[in-house]
């Protein structure tokens, strides 16, 4: 771990929280896509006056690789909640899987999530809208290094019914005092994204527009 990386505990997992830049005000939390990890530096396209943080999800980057799989998107919501416990309110920029987890945590902790910008990235689509053919997936044998092969297998099969996502969008909107606590910037529109995009309180536009809006919010 570098000096800019701290370790948070979520049950039996050590989570790496990286501090990519300093600044004044509310942090921006980057949530990476499936199989990715926090970037080394703040992406060029991104402008944010506060500190920029990045979380490595369970089984990714420098966080613990669990034994024997068992991943769900919901358990990753607990990862983000560990960050909220540590740093307080944040704005979230989520890529792919991180966008979906961002939606769920916005619903679960609307008072601490001051806007989520959902962007394209690995794991955005998930495993469709209902379970597929029964399958017992095992990763190929080999050394277990991040990203955890079980994470890649299980989270790419993670079922995302549109009405489920829609409920979370509604929870987020009801619980937040922001006009539009969710901001969809994805080009790819799986059914769960389509379902939330038309909800009142969900904005649409570029990543920069979304961040600008949340930066101006209290």
């Amino acid at each position, binding site marked *: 771990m570098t000096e800019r990386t701290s370790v948070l505990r979520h049950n039996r997992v050590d989570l790496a929280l990286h501090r990519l830049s300093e600044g004044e005000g509310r942090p921006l939390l980057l949530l990476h896509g499936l199989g990715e990890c926090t970037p080394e530096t703040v992406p060029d396209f991104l402008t944010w006056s506060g500190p920029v943080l990045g979380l490595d999800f369970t089984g990714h980057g420098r966080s613990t690789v*669990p034994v024997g*799989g068992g*991943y769900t998107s919901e*358990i990753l919501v607990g990862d983000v909640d560990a960050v909220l416990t540590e740093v307080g309110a944040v704005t979230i920029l989520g890529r792919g899987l991180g966008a979906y987890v961002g939606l769920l945590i916005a*619903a679960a902790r609307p008072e601490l999530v001051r806007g989520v910008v959902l962007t394209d990235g690995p794991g955005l689509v998930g495993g469709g809208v209902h379970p597929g053919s029964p399958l*017992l997936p095992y990763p190929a044998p080999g050394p277990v290094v991040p990203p955890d092969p079980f994470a890649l297998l299980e989270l790419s099969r993670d079922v995302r019914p549109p009405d489920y996502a829609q409920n979370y969008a509604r929870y987020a909107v009801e619980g937040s005092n922001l006009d539009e606590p969710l901001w969809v910037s994805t080009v790819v529109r799986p059914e769960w994204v389509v379902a939330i995009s038309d909800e009142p309180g969900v904005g649409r536009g570029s990543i920069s527009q979304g961040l600008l809006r949340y930066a101006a919010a209290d």
Partner: protein
Amino acid sequence: MVTDLSPGIDAQTAGSFPGARRPDRRRTVDAAGIDISVVEWGDIDHPALVMAHGGFDFAETLNVFAPKLAAGGWRVVSWDQRGHGDSAHAHLYSWEADQRDAAAVIATLPPTPMPFVGHSKGGSLVMHLANALPHRISALVNLDGLPSGRAMTDVSEHERTRMLRREMSAWLDHRRTLVGKQRKPGTIEELAERRGRMNPRLDPKWLQYLVTVGATELPDGWRWKIDPTLRMGGFGPWRPEWSMLRLPGIGAPVMGILGMDLELMGWGTRPEDVVPYLPPGARFEALNGVGHFVHIEQPRMVADLVLEFLS
């Protein structure tokens, strides 16, 4: 991989209960790095029958029921699901992981098709396994493990949304408390009383017996072996019909048994919720005056039903 084929179990601390017999054999199966404790009753040369326990139970809750199946000529094989009983406490828990662990146990058994039996969550689990491993199943018996959305049908949509939000927050609040969490110690009677809140219909003497086989005695008292980080409930996209839709396509003979007296740990399923999903020729038994734990309340009757069905 199979390790430790030592026969028998240390019975020093086990209590007794009429008809209860601890497993004849115990071994450990490595399921992708998770040690799964497997137990067996009956002659090892008899045909295998696998049985999955319900959520928050453990394999030795079958100590009365399984010997009755074994006496009918079966090698009864069960296992503690990850985080339960003597199996390892895991980093993560999921439905898919439970299925994979079960498949790892089944992979250690002879390659011929065999009956799958399951209670409650275990019933749903074997229903999914029957679809994922159709070449390994010869018959399916589901003991009050047919889920239904009925439990919330009298709740308005608005109130249901509020309940889900509360549950989500409560689940995350629980996650925040898990580091270093341990089961609360107590006497045998205290642990039995606590379990009795979830199993109010079961004999207190049975619950006290379960403490002696499902808990560990430490200097400060007994503690249930189940992973203290596990919690009832939680949130996710799962819906009951996803499990029920696994039922109609099962090609092996199917028997479903439902306890008709509703209770906390059950799913509130009624016969009319099940019948439309039964595959052709399936047998269905609704037991009046019996609760969710059909095989524990009426072990003789249910074992006879199962043995007769399998014969």
